[in-house]
């Protein structure tokens, strides 16, 4: 089944829902409110009336259908992907713009197979959560929400640099509308927040646009090949080191802003505060992963020399994100921002793993992307549930003391919190372990400092858990357990967390080969210094010790092969 169906199914459902709601809304409100609709501005209050309740529900139901179907497709792709495969499967390759060498090329490999699973799962969960609420102008909300899912899936599946950039930029636009139109807070405040978020993140993306074009043009010029943006072709057209370096920095800026990483996270607090929680669940759970994924998919394979060159810089940024994010997370009292800054820290770990530039670290990073998405979305949903019990406040000082009255909620929260702090036994532990193992091999000092981040994670996660559920009962807190509908939202995701805790190999084995292939060029670029300075001298010393003149490449095997 072509991947285009997976990508465009949600958007199609969104459009269909909008059309149905507009059509039924209009016909139902045509007669009694014709006077009002002529004046215009009351048109949407009319659709909120009882006559149009079903019309208002239709977009949400259709969106749910679309996301669940997309989730089903994604699970099918995960099951279908056999761990040993290297290279792309399910490739769709159509020429989109022949003059510019841009292809509409999609494909699944080990890098994105679990991430599309994550994306569809979280979108399905968030759509379900959104269906529990009334939205003003639901057809527009679900249209934007579904467009966002399509764009995110497109970014994960794109195998053409220009197509990736297009989806990467496009996925932000629905969020501009969703935050501005349905965000929390007063209108000017939320408009400012959404503008800040979009400009901040688009600044990075636009730099990436010019870098992507330069990649295609310069790679084809320097190698005398026709212009192309297909990733697999670009990998065979090496760029000169000078071009690689500035291009890499432009890409890194885009990805780090999106994650967000420490010095570039300025949009995050305002954005997190104003987003509706359902939107924030996917934004934090999925969109930040696109940035990290971009490093593995594009930056490392296409610009290996530059990645090796800037390895230390990137590791330091990652380290700064871990320390800064963790520290701010345990000084915050807004539960959302605790989740937000913990994401900064977690994304720091992921960056750390990627830029260890060896397979263990990168594999840990890939696993951790899935893990972080899986924990942060339920965490935010729980925050919303708790806020509903604490009179709408998301301040942890006003929560607390409901663990005994709400045992199921508390248990679910505990699982999520323990997974967040990477408790041994959770998949997050495996992920962080692999990341640190990778960094340990690459840069010892950085790994040692990064360990502090693991400790700090337990501080902020447990602090959030204790303050929100235990302690004294907050003023105006109403202790009530999780409702059935909310359980339907939360339990599936938590069970996926538990499943991965038992069987992280599902993700690890599928990612293994592709991660190795993605990291290999950068690893090769990063290591010759060491192999040239240390290992060969050792081998040479050995061979000289054996009093045999070495004519081969000077490695131990060649020396040992001599009788």
């Amino acid at each position, binding site marked *: 089944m072509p991947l285009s169906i997976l990508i465009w199914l949600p958007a199609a459902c969104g459009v269909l829902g909008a059309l149905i709601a507009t059509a039924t809304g209009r016909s139902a409100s045509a007669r009694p409110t014709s006077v009002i609709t*002529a004046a215009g*501005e009351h048109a949407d209050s009319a659709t909120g009336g009882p006559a149009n309740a079903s019309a208002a529900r239709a977009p949400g139901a259709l969106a749910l259908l679309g996301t669940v179907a997309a989730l089903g497709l994604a699970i099918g792709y995960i099951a279908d992907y056999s761990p040993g495969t290297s290279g792309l499967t399910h490739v769709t390759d159509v020429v989109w713009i022949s003059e*510019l060498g841009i292809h509409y090329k999609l494909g699944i490999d080990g890098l994105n197979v679990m991430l599309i699973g994550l994306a569809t799962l979280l979108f399905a969960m968030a759509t379900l959560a959104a269906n529990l609420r009334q939205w003003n*102008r639901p057809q527009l909300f679900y249209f934007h929400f579904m467009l966002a899912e399509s764009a995110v899936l497109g970014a994960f599946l794109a195998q053409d640099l*220009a197509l990736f950039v297009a989806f990467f930029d496009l996925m932000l636009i629905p969020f501009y509308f969703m935050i501005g139109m349905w965000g929390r807070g007063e209108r000017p405040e939320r408009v400012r927040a*959404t503008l800040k978020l979009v400009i901040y993140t688009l600044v990075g993306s636009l730099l990436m646009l*010019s870098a992507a*074009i330069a990649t295609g043009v310069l790679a084809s010029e320097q190698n005398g090949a026709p*212009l192309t943006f297909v990733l697999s072709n670009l990998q065979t057209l090496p760029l000169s080191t000078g071009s690689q370096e500035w291009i890499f920095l432009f890409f890194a800026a885009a990805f780090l802003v999106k994650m967000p990483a420490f010095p570039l996270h300025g949009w995050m607090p305002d954005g997190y505060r104003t987003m509706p929680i359902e939107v924030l669940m996917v934004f934090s759970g999925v969109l930040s992963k696109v940035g990290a994924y971009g490093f593995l998919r594009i930056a490392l394979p296409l610009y290996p020399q530059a990645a090796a060159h800037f390895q230390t810089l990137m590791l330091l940024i990652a380290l700064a994100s871990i320390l800064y994010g963790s520290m701010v997370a345990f000084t915050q009292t807004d539960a959302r921002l605790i989740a937000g800054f913990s994401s900064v820290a977690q994304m720091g770990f992921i960056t750390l793993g990627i830029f260890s530039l060896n397979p263990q670290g990168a594999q840990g990073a890939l696993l951790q992307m899935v893990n972080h998405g899986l924990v942060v979305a339920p965490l935010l949903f729980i925050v919303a549930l708790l806020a509903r019990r604490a009179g709408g406040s998301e301040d942890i000082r006003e929560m607390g003391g409901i663990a005994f009255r709400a045992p199921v909620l508390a248990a679910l929260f505990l699982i999520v919190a323990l997974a967040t702090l990477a408790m041994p036994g959770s998949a997050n532990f495996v992920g962080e372990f692999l990341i640190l193992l990778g960094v340990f091999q690459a840069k010892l000092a950085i790994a040692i400092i990064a360990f502090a981040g693991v400790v700090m994670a337990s501080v902020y996660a447990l602090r959030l858990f204790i303050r929100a559920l235990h302690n004294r009962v907050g003023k105006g807190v109403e202790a009530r357990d999780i409702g059935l509908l909310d359980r339907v939202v939360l339990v599936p995701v938590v069970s996926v967390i538990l499943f991965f805790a038992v069987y992280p190999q599902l993700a690890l084995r599928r990612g293994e080969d592709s991660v190795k292939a993605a990291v290999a060029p950068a690893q090769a670029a990063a290591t010759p210094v060491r192999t040239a300075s240390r290992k060969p001298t050792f081998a040479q010393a050995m061979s000289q010790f054996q009093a045999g003149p070495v004519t081969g490449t000077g490695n131990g095997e060649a020396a040992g092969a001599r009788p």
Partner: protein
Amino acid sequence: MSAVLASATLKGPHVDFAGLSPLMALLGGAVVVLLVGLLGSAWVRAHLVPALSLGALAATLGLTIWQWGEEKSILAGALRIDDLSLLLTMLLAIGGAATVLLAWRSLAAREAAHGEFHALLLTSIGGMSLLAAAQNTVALFIGLELLSIPLYVLCATEMRREHSLESGLKYLIIGSVGSATLLYGLALIYGATGATDFTTIAAAISSKGLASDVLLLTGIALCLVGLAFKSSVAPFHQWTPDVYEGAPTPVTAFMAVATKIAALGVFLRFFDVALIEAQHSWGPAVATLAAITIVVGNVGALGQSSLKRMLAYSSVAQAGYLLAGVVVATQLGVRATVFYLAVYLFMNMAAFAVIVARERQAGHGDKVQSVAGLGHTNPWLAWPLTLSMLSLAGIPATAGFIGKFYLIDAAVSGGYTWLGVVIVIGSMISLGYYLPVIAAMWMGEAPVPASGTPTPAPLPALAGGSPELEEDSPSTPVKSPQPEVLFVAVLAGAATLFFGLVPQPLFDLVHGAGSGLGLF
């Protein structure tokens, strides 16, 4: 003596009427429209005249399609008929048709008398078409004046509004300075090369080794300044916001779109054909101008409360993007410029159509408040403007993204990578003023109609004006947007989206545009 004169046969050039036919359709249409406008019936004036102008433009479009694929010089080498000039004429005809629709029930057309208004419009389009095909400095200058003089008048057609008059006067003065500078430059180039023909100039520059000749370079500099005035390239752009704001909105739309198409067309042909041998002298200068223009335009647009002013600065910035395709002087650059011009036509027409609709409806003029809450009250206007703003900012899935992609591609492969980066920096700044418009539409509240019904101040009496003109008060706000304005908005918005998803037809169209210029 007189006998000699009488017996001498004047040898006129061979006239290729087929090649000239689009131009003849435009100028002939102007004459017909002017005459029909003299007829008595009000209905004829208000509806038949615009319909005839549309007919003339449709004929022009048809004739360019008929001529499509021709490669020839006509009128003794004065004009060049090739894919570039035909495509630009096609775009001009489309832009002109949109203008006619926007002006159909406008105050400007009524006040200036319909016949005159549309005749001036068609003449101006004729001048632009001439300019796009000019292959000779004389034809270039004639085209430029033919385009400019009617425009000066058109700007002032709402003659009882002070701003309109001011706009016309300002444009006249600045435009004349630009024309004079250009003419001086052309004269100097003639002095240096001894030729008026573009190809002969190019040949003279290379054969006489004039590339660093002071006379020639001074001429080029003056020409650059003259054309920069016309295409509102910074630092010669200061007139743009005032003139755009003051002019009647349909005329502003026409100026923003059509003038830019014609000016960039002549930039392409003059610089990339006649002066191609001196490219290493003017290349860096034009690139610097482009970079300055991008920054100045985008920064100027920030914080503007008038949509027309905002779009004026944005058009300055867009001129900077477009120059990037001229600078590189490659076929790819020409194609990218023409592609972007086509895209620019659609996205600007969508925006201006919405402004026209709201001006007649909301009573807030062209202020940003006029579109506040439009997403709730009239999605049919809100979506085109949204798409237009996103496209102007270069967001994917709109044609603006592909256009910008193409321009950056051309800049990078022409060795001007830094200019490509400047283009994206400009796009970043531009988000700061395009996105707030979208926010106003979708996230704002529809404003209370300004002080009940907007009662316009009684207009000053017009010398020689007849009371029959006042039959229906011109500024009565209309309840819902007029169908023809809505049509332009929706069609242009749809085109913006369509060419963003399926750009191939447009690429096929511009494919030949670069090949006629003898570039590599």
